[in-house]
């Protein structure tokens, strides 16, 4: 058997990594602005998944066209963005104003995580057959467009998710650099006191950052439902571990590095663990009769491992690494080898 995973599996891994990247990016954004690690980031994303479920049931059940992805991203993003905005305005801001420390705020997002997972699970249970008349269970996998390339079936989401990640990142980048409010957001992240003295409504910046974070999460959550083979809010309980890992690898405070960190961690969990598993199977199990266990069950340990390595060797994450120095060192080494 080949060590390399198949094409569909690789594409699925890329799609998963893109979704984690978007989630980590949103997490890093709200951490950079309001300094709260959001333990509810993954369960908030499930609002996007539920929105997609409703969309498919209403409009795409008989004719799953490519526009399902666009609609899922936009509507899922908007709904989830609104939820995240409400979280900040109705819970976190009042709690912070009451003098709660970051530990209190973390506990609050922990509580929100529990509330969201249970409310969405309860909603799906109540809604099936009533608000969701057609779909049975929470399965959505067969309701999407797909391509046939050679012998392979390429599922639509494996194309849509990476494209979504790229497009949203480009839009977000343009917002941060080309609009007055985006520049004010970056300024606030760096020095909220100075920004507020210059007339920036810092609270508005914080509200918008929560909305945007929610939008990114909802867009990712809607399409991630395909990689998870269905809409199960309790899946958020483990996804959050990966999302946090991505953000920490990225440096927790950098939005772009959050995206990259999330992408790397997602890829390591899927592709990295598959490579490791195939290697283990082909060499240790077949040749040396090591216990025949599937390492794939333990893919989450990849993300924890990456976090530990990162915290040991680069505590400020990828964002804190002096890439110029790294490049120079690599350049020097190459020069040394040439001699």
């Amino acid at each position: 058997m080949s060590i390399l995973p198949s094409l569909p599996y690789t594409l699925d891994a890329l799609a998963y990594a893109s979704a984690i990247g978007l989630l980590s990016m949103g997490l890093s954004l709200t951490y950079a602005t309001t300094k709260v690690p959001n333990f509810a980031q993954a369960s908030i994303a499930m609002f996007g998944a539920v929105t997609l479920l409703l969309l498919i049931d209403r409009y795409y059940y008989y004719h799953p066209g490519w526009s399902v992805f666009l609609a899922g991203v936009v509507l899922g993003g908007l709904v989830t963005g609104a939820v995240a905005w409400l979280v900040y305005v109705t819970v976190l801001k009042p709690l912070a104003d009451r003098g709660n420390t970051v530990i209190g705020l973390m506990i609050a997002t922990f509580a929100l995580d529990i509330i969201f997972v249970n409310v969405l699970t309860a909603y799906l249970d109540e809604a099936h057959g009533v608000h969701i008349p057609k779909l049975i269970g929470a399965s959505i996998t067969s309701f999407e467009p797909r391509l046939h390339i050679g012998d392979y079936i390429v599922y639509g989401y494996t194309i849509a998710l990476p494209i979504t990640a790229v497009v949203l990142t480009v839009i977000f980048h343009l917002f941060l650099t080309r609009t007055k409010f985006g520049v004010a957001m970056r300024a606030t992240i760096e020095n909220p006191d100075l920004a507020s003295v210059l007339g920036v409504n810092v609270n508005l910046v914080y509200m918008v950052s929560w909305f945007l974070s929610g939008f990114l999460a909802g867009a990712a959550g809607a399409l991630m439902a395909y990689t998870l083979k269905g809409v199960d809010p309790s899946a958020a309980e483990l996804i959050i571990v990966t999302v946090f890992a991505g953000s920490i690898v990225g440096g927790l405070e950098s939005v772009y590095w959050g995206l990259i960190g999330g992408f790397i961690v997602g890829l390591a969990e899927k592709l990295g663990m598959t490579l490791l598993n195939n290697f283990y199977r082909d060499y240790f199990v077949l040749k040396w009769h090591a216990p025949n266990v599937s390492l794939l069950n333990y893919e989450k340990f990849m993300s924890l491992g990456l976090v530990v390595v990162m915290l040991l060797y680069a505590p400020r994450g990828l964002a804190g690494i002096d890439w110029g120095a790294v490049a120079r060192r690599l350049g020097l080494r190459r020069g040394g080898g040439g001699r």
Partner: protein
Amino acid sequence: MSVWIFSDAFLITLFSFITVAISLNLEAGFTGIPNFGKHVFVFVGAFAAQGIGVRIAAWIYEKVEPQAAQQALEHLRSMVPGATWKSLVGAAADVDANRIVVNNYLRPFFVSHVGLEALLVVLLLVVTVALALFFGLIASYAALRLKEDYLAILLLSFAELMVMVLFYQSQSLNGGNQGLWAITFTSDPVKFALIGSGALAFISYLYAERLANSPMGRAMRAVRDDDVAASVFGRDIAVIRLKVILVSSVLAGLAGFFFIQNAALSTSMTFNRVIWTFLPWAMIILGGMANNLGAVVGAIVFLIGKRLFEYYQIPISNALHLGSSIVSALLPNIFIGIFIIVILYALPQGILPEKPSKTVKFEEILESEQGEEA
């Protein structure tokens, strides 16, 4: 209605939570270590009585009664076709044979061999403490190096991976999603659990009170409030944090050990983050952080409230027009989540706020330091 409050199961749960809340309070309330992975520290005690306990018990049984063990093994093989285990030790931790091994062979054997039973209890308590110390060392390694938010994230991730992935997804360690019957003690394991967990809660409280009012307790609060003050105090911050984490881990592990004596059959997911991390947090926030009595009061109020809610769950979900039983099963968690946010808003200091008189102010620390030097 008064019956259920004083049922053994409720009291065991209450005592276990009191211990866990006190130990979490030592970390989070007094020292400022946000342990968001408390559930794995409680879980180690259960693992000592389940995955490890049944194996050790079966091993002792095989050594003491080899013939009976052989017969038991053959009997089990006939009942579980296709079994691969070669000894009673393997069978004891296998989900298909575990129930029979524990209930039909091990428990009757140890109940009739009091000396061996006492030895096994001590052995498993030692295992619990050792596991708790091991996990505590891992946690403290992170706690000594990381800021509180990073630490909270890392401890949560660590605990989730241990409990949900390592122990729950694979059946070999602790029965996975089928769970294992724990090895329980005496002919009345519920009473054993009740006395054990009650004594543990009592000892935990006394210990925490003594610690809080000792010079080390003041140093702990100094560490939490101000690193500069702590260094002026002249204590080694690292040693204090290490000590607190290790002690708290052991207390939590022992609580898990006695708790599982009553629960007996359970999966690793019994120790999920909502029940054994979030609830203890909710208790100490409700009771008042950095106040041992607050942790106890928080645990009592919370568990009684939770019980009352569960008692009236059906009428409540009927009143809210919630049809399915799944929905009403989810309601307590939803209400607990809302409740704790309300508490954070309305009572940020909890029912019993930290006693200000016992906190050492920065200036006093400075003065006492100068006095000592002089």
